[in-house]
């Protein structure tokens, strides 16, 4: 859930799209039902088999625009070309793998693609270390299986099997969190496009329109690498972190405000200036160069994702609220930043120290308090 609003999907418009206030969060196809209807009504281009709208219409739905007099809110901002590649991949009935750091809207994009193409983003396998091959293929209603033996009625199809039967998209979240042998169950499904059910002496071939959108996080620790064989069966798109510092600041401030209300943090929201500084430090260390591009930097071992910048700010608010004055001070920020930059003790500490003395120290008076606080922390 924490990932939902990182792309700035506009909640007000979402609710004006109507429907479903009772559940905690309605799926995209319900939230944006009105937009989808408008697009389908106006769509003049050819639809691939199994699709509810043409590829160009999907692009409009994701990147925004207007259809007739309906305004389509942009769901994914900044990297239109990647969305084009993603849609084209699904047209060629290849499976799509979205890779990215935390907070790059992988699941968000995958949900909206499924919502636009099939009007159903709900066929999801949520990958965990405990996911078994049955979750990927099919399992049984064991009571019925024991009572009557194998029968189609006793079979419980996985979301992927259901997608094959209906010729639509299945989603596989966090595929790298599953054990390698479970991941490998996907290999034959993707190459042969059938699932055989030996117990019933039958085979379920995929209808046209079937495909899989998987998401994965490769830089986190505790994930299982994908085998080369499986990688070959996917078109892989690496989702980048926000393109400009402005968009990242926007995303971070919005999320920090949300978190402050949700978690009832007793501190004031950090100033725009503090947010900008944190995002600047994160971007510079993540990309390995200063924002002006003039100096290259060493990068620490951690990921330093947008999501982490958000948690640094939330952390410093918690510190300020519980142990400080309630205003987020440079010292609060410094200890939170220290914690997320310096992970692998000696090496990261040197990287951070270098950054402090070669970059921050020379930034002038405005940065001085934060520099002083950070140096003190790093000693």
């Amino acid at each position, binding site marked *: 859930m924490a990932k939902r609003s990182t792309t700035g999907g506009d909640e007000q418009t979402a609710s004006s799209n109507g429907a479903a206030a009772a559940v905690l969060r309605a799926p995209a196809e319900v939230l944006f039902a009105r937009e989808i209807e408008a697009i389908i009504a106006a769509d003049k281009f050819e639809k691939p088999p199994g699709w509810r709208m043409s590829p160009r219409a999907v692009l409009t739905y994701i990147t925004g625009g207007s259809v007739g007099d309906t305004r389509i809110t942009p769901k994914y901002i900044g990297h239109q070309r990647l969305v084009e*590649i993603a849609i*084209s991949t699904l047209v060629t009935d*290849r499976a799509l793998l979205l890779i990215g750091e935390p907070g790059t809207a992988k699941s968000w994009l995958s949900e909206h693609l499924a919502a636009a193409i099939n009007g159903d983003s709900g066929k999801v396998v949520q990958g965990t270390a405990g996911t078994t091959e049955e979750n990927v293929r099919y399992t049984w209603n064991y009571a019925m299986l024991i009572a009557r033996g194998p029968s189609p009625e006793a079979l419980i199809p996985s979301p992927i099997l259901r997608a094959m039967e209906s010729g639509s998209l299945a989603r596989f979240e966090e595929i790298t969190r599953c054990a390698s042998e479970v991941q490998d169950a996907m290999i034959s499904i993707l190459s042969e496009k059938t699932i055989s059910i030996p117990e019933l002496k039958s085979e379920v071939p995929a209808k046209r329109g079937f495909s899989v959108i998987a998401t994965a996080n490769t830089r986190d620790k505790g994930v299982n690498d994908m085998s080369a064989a499986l990688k070959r069966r996917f078109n892989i798109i690496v989702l980048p972190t926000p393109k400009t510092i402005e968009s990242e600041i926007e995303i971070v401030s919005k999320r920090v405000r949300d978190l402050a209300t949700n978690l009832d943090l007793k501190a004031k929201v950090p100033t725009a200036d503090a947010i900008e500084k944190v995002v600047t430090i994160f971007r510079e260390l993540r990309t390995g*160069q200063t924002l002006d591009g003039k100096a*290259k930097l*060493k990068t620490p071992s951690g990921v330093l994702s947008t999501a982490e910048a958000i948690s640094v700010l939330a952390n410093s608010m918690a510190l300020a609220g519980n142990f400080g004055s309630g205003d987020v001070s440079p010292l609060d920020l410094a200890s939170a930043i220290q914690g997320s930059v310096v992970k692998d003790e*000696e090496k990261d500490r*040197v990287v951070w120290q270098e950054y402090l*003395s070669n970059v921050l120290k020379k930034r002038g008076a405005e940065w001085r308090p934060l520099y002083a606080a950070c140096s003190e922390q790093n000693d």
Partner: protein
Amino acid sequence: MTKPWRVNVFGVRHLSPAGAWHLRRYLDALKPRMVLIEGLADASGLIPQITRKGTKPPIALLAYTDSLPVRTLIYPLARYSPEFQAMSWADEHNAKAEFIDLPSDVFLALQDVEAELHAQRRRAAAEDPPAKGPEAPPPAETPPPPARPSVYEQYAERAGEADYETYWERHFEHNLSDDAYRLAAYEFGSSLRDLEEDQPRWQAENLVREAFMRRQIEKAIAAGTPPEKIVAVVGAFHAPVLTGEHPAMTDDELASLQRRSSKFTLMPYSYFKLSTQSGYGAGNRAPAYFDLLWDALRESDLAGLPSRYLSLVARHLREAGTHRSTAEAIEGVRLANTLSALKGGLAPTLTDLRDAAITLLGHGELSTVKDAIAHVEVGTAIGELPVGVSRTSIQADFERELSRLRLEKHKTTVQQELTLDLRENRQAKSVDAAFLDLGRSSFLHRLRVLGIGFAKPMRTSQQAATWAERWTLQWSPESEIHLVEAVLLGETVELAAGFKFKSTLEACASIADAAEVVRDACLCGMMASMDAARRRLQELSAETSEMTAIAHAAHVLGLIVRYGDVRKFDPEPLMPLVEELFVEAALAMHAAAGCDNEQAQKTIVAMNEMNGLALEHADRVDEALWIERLRRLSDADDRNPLLSGYACAILLERGLMANEDLAREVSRRLSPGVPADLGAGWFEGLSKRNRYALLARQVLWALLADYIGSLDEDHFRRSVVFLRRAFGGFNPREKRQIAENLAEHWGVSADTAAEAIESELTDAEQKKLSDLNEINFDDL
């Protein structure tokens, strides 16, 4: 001319394969007797050379002024240039081919005017600093800031394409319908002319060129070729106005144009060079790809191009050791086709193909396929010219420099020596003369960098003197060949050296290499290259944390800063980098000190270099940090003891360690129980510097004596190895002083001690010593 004439005009984009393909079909259909081509009118004589058998594109037509300042014009021609194909067609069909654009002398004079305007603007900007305060950004190079997108970008955006190149390729390069290209280019040219561009100078230049082209066309008609048998091949922009309805240039107008005396020649060109020239027609970014496109068009196999592109990328990947299956290449073709269909295109553009290659063959990462893509898109093709055709600008520039620097008499096959004194000659009358030797040095260094074996540096005896240099000069035919080849890098010696630096920097993998380039650029007196090298060095420094390399780079830069005075340049831009490297090396030292004894010797060199920097530039570098790190290393027990001792020695030398601290440290390091190799190793490090300070401290020797006394037989034998090494570097006088120190400690008078040392060894003593030599090294 009485009635308005009308010739057949074919508008093209330079270096456009589809343009060349359509043009050949157009010429085949029309069978003209004369082909007029946009190109330097006075260079028409070179056309037979261009179409000659031994000529293999890419080549370039080069025009240059034969006096200073050198201005050059380059017209690159690839196999797929419409202009090149037009000439070839004319040659094959016995038609006449001629260039009709302004002659080179006028063109080059125009560049002079342009440069003068540029300089004026810069001066104006410099004299009238913007009132924003010291932080205001420096004035931009080109005056109109690109606030709104250019006309070309507007076109691309309207068509929903990310950039103009893709727009052009999608709309012009793939359309094979008859005459589609010519008509579309004509339309495109007219609409470009309609759009108001706020560049009066640029417009004026085009009007002059077009009037001259019309004049040349009229001349051709007057000479007897009927207009319908003439085809003019020009840029799409000029196509709409080459008719008799517009006035041609008169004789008076032509006479009023400024001129500069010029020469021109053909030269071999390379696809790599072509791809680095921005702002010149289509196909320049990816010459090898456009070469593929040209082949595909000629074989009517445009649909096969994506497969060819992706399998080539896959093949390069495999050759580099990254396996990719054919299935992935096939899926890549499908993806590229779909991407193109999404835009309503006829075939995938280069962008589509590249994205498909990244997604499928790179598994989403550009970095994986970057090299392979560069291979397929840019390629390594180099053009060829028959022997004797080329008389290049760089040869002319070389001769000119020789005479300016009064070096002509050295251009002989007899080896000669030249000694240079780079300091200002105060008796000289002009600035040039005063720094004649400095100019010579820069020039010779540039030749050295370009690999032109005319001049070789000799070691000078005074290594430290920054102002003396010795060279041997000898001219050879090989040097001539190298010089001609260097024109591929640039039109003058300086430009070529600059390009060479640029490519060396791109290939630079280590910080030491980059530091060498900084030094070379400084020796060549090329500040722009030095600045680029400095940036590259900074980039590389982020990728390494090897202390020895960083310290060495900092040291080299420190030396260059010292050259500043003699070589007349401002070393200030280098200082921030020296400071940064200094911090990096200081921080990296502690980790680097955990090494074996062999590596420790290198680390000692690095520590010396760092300490030298800290002393020489104490006002700039972070000396406090350096000392803090030295103390830390000096106190550390888990690092190489030699280095800890050495750090201690530096602190001692700088007067940062009090007597009692030293005493405590010595006794701690040399306490019984500390393994002999550690204790003695530490002492070795300590004794590597400032011996006099050590010799003067009696307490140290007392402690050392007690330590040795406390060792048991085994440990003593081990420590002897290290102690011998430690004392190996002391000279006899110092050794005697040590002996006296020890004598004092043992209560023996100095004279007795000296006597004992100087007397012959007895047999018994001899035996004891040789026993000590028989050390079982397995223990260590």
